[in-house]
C-alpha cells in the first residue's frame, strides 16, 4: 500500500470519528482531539509502561509460537507417516477456541506474564502450524527431485527448499492472526492483573469512568496492533520479495 493512501485512510477515519462524536454528543465518545490530548498526558503517567508490558507479552507469545510451530509444521509437512498420526489431533483441536482454557491457564501459570504469553502462544501455534504444514506438503515433487539431483540431502533440502518455502507462509499466517493475538491479550489483561493495556483500559480508566483516558488506552492498543502488523508486513516483503512481484 502506498503511503499517500495510508494517510488518506487515516484522515477519513479521524473525520468519521469526529462526526460521530459530534452527532452523539456524549462523554462516552470523546472526539479525536480530546483523546489525543488525553493520550499525550497519560503516556508518562503509566500508559507507556502498560504499552511496553503488553508489547512484551504479545511479542514473546508470537516468538514462542513461531519458534515451535514452524519446525513442527515442517516436520509434519515432510513426513506423511507422522502427519497421518497427528493430523486428526490437529483437526480436532484447531477449531477449539483456545481462549476458553484461560481460567485453567491462569490457575496453572498464575496471573503474571507467563499465563498471557502462553494463551497467545496457544492460539497462534495452531494457526501457524497448519499453514506451514500445508505449505511444506504442497511443495511440488519436481522441485524436490531437482534439488536432490544436485546432490542435496535431507539437511540441504531443509535449508534450501523447505525453510524458504514456508517461512513467508508462516509470516502471512502471523500477519492474519495478529489481530486475534492482541484481542486475546486485551481480554486476558482485563482482569486479575495489575499491568498491561487491557488492565489500563478496563480496570483503571473504565472503572474510574475516565473516558478520555480509556480512549487513550484504546488508541495505545490499536497502535500496538498496527505496529506489529507493519513489522510483520515489512518482514514478509524483506524475506519474500518474490511473493510481491508484479505480473511479468
Amino acid at each position: 500500500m502506498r503511503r499517500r493512501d495510508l494517510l488518506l485512510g487515516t484522515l477519513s477515519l479521524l473525520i468519521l470519528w469526529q462526526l460521530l462524536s459530534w452527532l452523539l454528543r456524549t462523554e462516552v465518545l470523546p472526539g479525536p482531539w480530546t483523546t489525543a490530548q488525553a493520550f499525550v498526558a497519560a503516556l508518562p503517567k503509566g500508559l507507556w509502561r502498560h504499552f511496553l508490558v503488553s508489547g512484551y507479552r504479545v511479542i514473546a507469545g508470537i516468538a514462542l509460537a513461531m519458534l515451535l510451530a514452524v519446525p513442527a509444521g515442517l516436520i509434519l509437512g515432510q513426513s506423511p507417516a507422522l502427519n497421518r498420526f497427528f493430523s486428526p489431533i490437529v483437526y480436532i483441536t484447531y477449531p477449539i477456541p483456545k481462549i476458553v482454557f484461560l481460567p485453567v491457564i491462569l490457575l496453572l501459570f498464575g496471573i503474571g506474564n507467563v499465563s498471557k504469553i502462553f494463551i497467545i502462544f496457544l492460539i497462534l501455534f495452531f494457526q501457524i502450524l497448519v499453514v506451514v504444514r500445508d505449505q511444506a506438503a504442497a511443495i511440488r515433487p519436481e522441485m524436490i527431485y531437482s534439488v536432490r539431483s544436485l546432490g542435496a540431502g535431507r539437511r540441504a533440502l531443509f535449508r534450501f527448499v523447505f525453510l524458504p518455502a514456508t517461512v513467508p507462509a508462516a509470516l502471512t499466517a502471523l500477519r492474519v492472526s495478529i489481530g486475534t493475538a492482541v484481542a486475546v491479550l486485551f481480554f486476558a489483561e482485563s482482569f486479575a492483573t495489575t499491568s498491561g493495556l487491557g488492565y489500563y483500559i478496563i480496570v483503571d480508566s473504565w472503572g474510574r469512568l475516565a473516558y478520555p483516558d480509556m480512549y487513550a488506552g484504546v488508541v495505545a492498543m490499536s497502535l500496538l496492533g498496527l505496529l506489529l502488523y507493519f513489522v510483520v508486513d515489512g518482514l514478509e516483503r524483506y524475506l519474500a520479495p518474490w511473493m510481491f512481484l508484479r505480473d511479468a
Partner: protein
Amino acid sequence: MTATDTARPMVEVRDLLFYYGEGRDGLPETPAVFSGFSWHAIAGEAWAIIGPSGCGKSTLLYLIAGLRKPRGGEILVDGHPVPRPRASTGLVLQDYGLLPWATIWENVALPMRLGRFYKGKGANGDPVRPYPRPDIPAEQVDYWLDRLGIADQRAKYPAQLSGGQRQRAAIARSLLQQPNLLLMDEPFSSLDAVTREDLQLLTAELRAETGVTTLVVTHTIEEAAFLGRRILVLNSPPNKQPRVVDNPGAGDRGYRGQPAFWEKVAELRGLLAGVSEAVVAPS
C-alpha cells in the same frame, strides 16, 4: 573432453524389475513397468527415449537418477549403483524445477552453494554419492548464464521469465556442476514450436561442447529423431527387450531438413504404432 574415447558404459541397466505400488502381501498391485530389462548407454552418447504415455520412460529416467529404486536387477551409473541421486548427474524436468523464491542467478548458483554447504563431506570421496563440488567459482555461474543466453535475466525471478528462459536456467544449473550424465524429462514439452526447436539445437550444441552423456525422454517423435543419435523405443509395459534405433545424423543443425530425418521419423512412428517390428535393431 571428447565424446567417446573409450567404450565405457555410463549407464548400465541389468535385468531390471520395476513396478509401482505394493499390496498387503508384498506382491505388486500393478503390472511391472520393466521386467528382465537390460540396456546400456556408452559414455558420451546422445540418447533419446521415446514411447507413449505410461510406457515407463520417465520411470526409467528417475531410476537412473537415483530417485526410485529398482525392485530387482541393478542399475549402474559410471560403474556404481545409485541408491541416492549423485551430484554429477544433471536432471532437467519439464517445469517447476527452479526455486520460485530465488533469482535466476541464485537458482543457477545453487550447485555452488550446495557444494559449499557440504564442503567437509566432499573430501571423504564417497563414491556412491559424490557431493557437489565444493570449489565451483562464481564466474562459472556467469559463464553458463551467458552461454545459455540469459545473462540479462539474472536478477529476475522464475515467474518473470518465459518457459523457454526458465528451461535455459534449468540447463545452466545442471551444467554448472560439470555432470558426466545429463537426464532430461520432457524438457521442452510445454514450449511453443519455435522455442522448442531453438532449445533442441542448443541442447545438441552443448552436448557436443561438453561431451556429456545425455538421455532425453520425450513423447515427440521429431524431438527424438533430432536429439537422439541412438533412440530407445519403449512400448506398453511390461518392457522386456530394449528396441534401439540408430540415428547417426542427429544433432546436426541442418538435419531437420534432410530426407534421412523424415525417414527416421517415419520409422519411429511405425515402431511406436507397433507396425514394423522387423526394422528393430537389437542393442
